[in-house]
């Protein structure tokens, strides 16, 4: 299960917004798709649901949505703004 870090704060504007990392004092730009992904994650949606919703709301193919979401999640992980609480994934990671 992917969740947004407790230290992340979303602040929306008319055509995008920012994500504040309150523990490290960092600020990141988000475009409207990024904003929506963070909102969906905060609402507890899984990746499959993310792809469906993003695809529908932004009228893009599932494939493009999955690629964009994967890139965005990777960027969030690199910035320590994403937690992966999936037990299976953890055990896989430990085995790797």
């Amino acid at each position, binding site marked *: 299960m992917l969740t947004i870090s407790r230290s992340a*704060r979303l602040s*929306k504007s008319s055509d995008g917004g*920012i994500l*504040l990392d*309150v*523990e490290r*004092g960092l600020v*990141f*730009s*988000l475009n409207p798709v990024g904003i929506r992904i963070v909102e969906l994650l905060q609402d507890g949606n899984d990746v499959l649901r993310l792809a469906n919703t993003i695809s529908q709301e932004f009228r893009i193919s599932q494939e493009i949505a999955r690629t964009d979401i994967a890139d965005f999640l990777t960027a969030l992980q690199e910035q320590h703004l994403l937690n992966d609480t999936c037990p299976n994934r953890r055990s896989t990671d430990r085995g790797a």
Partner: protein
Amino acid sequence: MLSELGNGREPWGILVVSPDGEQILLYRDGENFSVPRVEIPRYERVAANINRTVGQDLGIPVISLYPIIPAGSGDLAGGRYHAVTAFPKSGDLPHGEWKLISSMSAESFPCRLDFSAIHAFRAGLEPRGAEPETFPFLQPDWFADVARWVADALRSHALRLTGPFQQFNADSLFSLIRFDTNGRAVWLKAVGAGNSREFPLTLALAQLCPARIPKILASKPEWRAWLAVEASGVCLSESSDARQWEYAAAELARLQITSIRAADTLRSAGARDLTCDGLRLLAESFFAFFTSSPRDSLTSDGNTFRGEEIEDIKNAVLDCLANLQAVGLPNTVGHMDLNPANIFFTEAGCVFLDWAEGFLGNPLFSFEYLLQHFRRAVSPGAQEETRFREAYLLPWREVVSPGGFEAAISSAPLAALFAYAATAWSDSTKRALNLAGVNYLASLVRKMRRIAASSRTEGVLL
């Protein structure tokens, strides 16, 4: 006090408040509370040092808000306070505890200034009867608004914020913040109502000479703010190479030449009037100040002026201004703070920063300012100084008839110094002029006296 004087650092009480301004971080000792204290280097940027030190000492990132002057603090060394916003308030704190500001009473604070500072902070948040835009950085949660505006502005330039930022100046009126992006870093500068000329003048110059001003990505008149791409290249302050200084002098001339046709634009953008006509008018009131003030209030070192001395200096200044005007050099943009930290070498030429002291006037005034810094940085011999002056004059030879500058240059040092002093005096008369201010102005007048005397004996000034 001793530690402040002895180690080059000064203590500050820090009011760490929540973004909603309702809570404050305090240290508890039984039933008593105190605000955190930090020490930062003196004479350095307060906001940058406070943010860094609070982050290190308290373990939480903060945004600087503004200094707080509590009632009764006077000039006490321990009377400096600064408000900061926790970024935003996080739940777990390694030090201290969050308390509701409204629940605190004076009795809880053994240091009465701590409570006075908190009281002053809270009172300062009340509406002041002005538009919110007048104090855009007053409320503790302003940073998110600013960051959103920056992010939106960057988006249209295919840039985005990538995390780190650094705050350099902070007050309820002004702000200076550097943001990292996926491209070059950008700077947000907001100058507030206190500096009415820098905002419009910077925008006007960016249109007039885009190659020599940092590229402006967006502006926000309500905050008197703009977002500019960081100047790349080498800062002149890092150079003692005479050739680089010569290049900067030539670039200054090119910038000024570009501005000749834009005198009206610069004037309407708020550039200070330091034309010879404008300075002649200022001369009367400036020197009258030194003859009409009580003598013992002029300087603290006993080095006062006699009325006839002041008259001589004034006449020398007026002569220089008349000489400069007779030569007929065009008025151009000028920079009364042309220190090398404000000049960057880029691949395309020099970029000039920080136009708070921009003016319209004789081009040699800025050159004189740069020349003084050249002498300090390079310690030039006679040949090097001649080359430096030649480098500045060369671009002008295509614009001004031969001999024009040569005729003007002997009058420039005294006139430029007067322009600088008159600017400082004109600004200070808008505030209460304290003894330090009077002494500083008096020191400039003494320097004028020396220059005027040397011109009488040597015939030339440079």
